[in-house]
């Protein structure tokens, strides 16, 4: 039954509805695949009992011809989403015994539509990272290897478990979160499709907060169509999130195969950074060619404040994190360290509970928000953010429908290879993705080619606010031109 796991979500949906196989068979195939793939460390918690119960319920619905949009579709959930009665940790020691009494809105939307939960997926601690190495449960190992080598590689991050699970056929789709590129960069590193929706498109209620003005939930899947199907389910207004937007949710799947003729595609000259790998540049040119062949018009555009986006991000994100993570105090939930006095209890709990990268970001955030430094750092960063956003507004106002750029400056790297001595070395990975979060825009990462060493490379399309449909149509053109990429199984 192994081949059931290699179906696309859309193929599985058709097979379930025609009765070719049952939801229970589909789930068993995935549970077996997960067991064989434990070396990848993609799941931090497998939930086979829940999966079987949900699949059985789906099977009776399917028999009664009452199938909902995602009936019987097995998915994995990043451990940043609160799941009722299922341990949720953000892959941090400080939450490693936390069992929510409530369900996040976006996961509740998946279950409302009949999806089946396989388990919780690994990520960088509190989603702070670009390699999924900072998890309390240990690093995620990419299912991809360089041609002829067995060096373990990172799957990217922070949604590295989600990306690895989708690429290795350990689920038909997964949820991730994207604060500075945490869906798009791992998607690019693993040959999968990742969508960061417009800020406000999906509810943030029940997601472990990292940087609230940047965080957004989104799907990872093996095809553009599968990602569109998942986004339609999770998107929508939620009264419990005051920043969620009350706009109708389009049928994103209908955008697949739609003509892109006459669409104006911007190529931002500032993304041609010094030292951009030749193979990334070649991929970018290939992407331009594919869209041109499909009838799109290519224009060069300028986003002049791009070079300052990373610095603004690495002030704003830690500032919001230091405030959001103040709640982990050992009093109401999570870890508590022994101490005789309340102040020491806080300090010891937070010292023991947070890993090195989280501690660093909290301290930077605390510093830039502290008296005397607020204006120089935080306020200035929020002004630069306004300029980054204005750059995009100007480009879109000139008639551009979407922007095409690489998703990452390089392919995946080895575990432990980056960021050892200087934490900012890893930050540079986010150079093409953070601008989108600062401006609140939607973007999609879609595989475009393999590197000379045989590793996936991704292209990124950035869209107008709430115009995810155009991104799906364009990404589908790239997907049809480039083909799909899957790793050879070694695990």
């Amino acid at each position, binding site marked *: 039954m192994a081949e059931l796991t290699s179906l696309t979500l859309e193929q599985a949906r058709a097979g379930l509805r025609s009765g070719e196989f049952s939801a229970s068979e589909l789930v068993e195939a995935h549970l077996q695949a997960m067991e064989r793939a434990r070396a990848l460390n993609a799941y931090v918690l497998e939930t086979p009992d829940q999966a079987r119960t949900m699949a059985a319920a789906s099977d009776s619905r399917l028999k009664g011809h009452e199938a909902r949009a995602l009936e019987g579709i097995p998915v994995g959930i990043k451990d940043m989403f609160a799941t009722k009665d299922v341990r949720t940790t953000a892959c941090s020691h400080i939450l490693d015994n936390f069992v929510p009494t409530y369900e996040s809105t976006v996961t509740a939307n998946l279950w409302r539509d009949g999806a089946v939960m396989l388990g919780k997926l690994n990520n960088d601690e509190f989603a702070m990272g670009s390699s999924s190495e900072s998890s309390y449960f240990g690093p995620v190992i990419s299912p991809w290897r360089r041609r002829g080598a067995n060096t373990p590689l990172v799957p990217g991050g922070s949604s590295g478990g989600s990306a690895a699970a989708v690429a290795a056929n350990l689920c038909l789709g997964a949820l991730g979160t994207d604060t500075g590129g945490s869906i798009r960069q791992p998607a690019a590193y693993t040959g999968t499709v990742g969508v960061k929706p417009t800020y406000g498109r999906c509810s943030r209620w029940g997601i472990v907060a990292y940087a609230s003005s940047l965080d957004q939930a989104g799907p990872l899947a093996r095809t553009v169509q599968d990602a569109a199907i998942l986004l339609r389910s999770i998107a929508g207004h939620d009264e419990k999130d005051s920043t969620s937007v009350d706009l109708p949710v389009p049928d994103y799947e209908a955008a697949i195969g739609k003509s892109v003729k006459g669409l104006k595609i911007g190529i931002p000259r500032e993304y041609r950074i010094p030292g951009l790998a030749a193979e990334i540049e070649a991929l970018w040119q290939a992407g331009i060619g594919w869209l041109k062949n499909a009838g799109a018009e290519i224009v060069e555009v300028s986003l002049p404040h791009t070079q300052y986006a990373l610095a603004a991000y690495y002030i704003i994100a830690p500032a919001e994190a230091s405030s959001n993570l103040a709640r982990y105090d050992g009093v109401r939930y999570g870890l508590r360290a022994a101490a005789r006095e309340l102040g*020491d209890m806080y300090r010891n709990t*937070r010292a023991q509970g947070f890993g090195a990268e989280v501690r*660093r970001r*909290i301290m930077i955030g*605390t510093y830039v928000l502290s008296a005397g430094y607020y204006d120089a750092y935080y306020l200035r960063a*929020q002004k630069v*953010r306004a*300029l980054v956003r204005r750059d995009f507004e100007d480009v879109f106002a000139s008639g551009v429908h979407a922007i095409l750029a690489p998703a990452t400056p390089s392919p995946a790297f080895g575990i432990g290879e980056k960021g050892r001595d200087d934490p*900012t070395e890893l930050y540079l990975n986010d150079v093409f993705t953070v601008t989108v979060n600062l401006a609140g825009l939607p973007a999609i990462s879609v595989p475009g080619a393999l590197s000379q060493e045989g590793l996936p490379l991704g292209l990124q399309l950035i869209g107008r606010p709430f115009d995810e449909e155009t991104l799906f149509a364009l990404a589908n053109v790239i997907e049809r031109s480039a083909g799909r990429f899957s790793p050879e199984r070694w695990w």
Partner: protein
Amino acid sequence: MSIDADTVRRIADLARIAVAEEEIEHLRGELNAILTFVEQLSRVDVNGVEPVTSVVPMQLKKRKDEVTDGQILDQVLRNAPATDDDFFLVPKVVE
């Protein structure tokens, strides 16, 4: 701008994170690397620029002022490390 060991101690205290004396120097280096990295923002002309306060331009929504939740004391306390009756228990605050 470079921060010194005393500033590291002060930030750690504000953030309520215990830092051992032998970690200070290493942490100082890491924090300075980040601060040096973000220093480039001082080159941007931000005169007359309004800071971002809302990611998507929209009016903050208001809901009806009514109770929509509550009576879930057991759920609120379920994950607490220490409780006493209906209260969270913490180490002694005053002698």
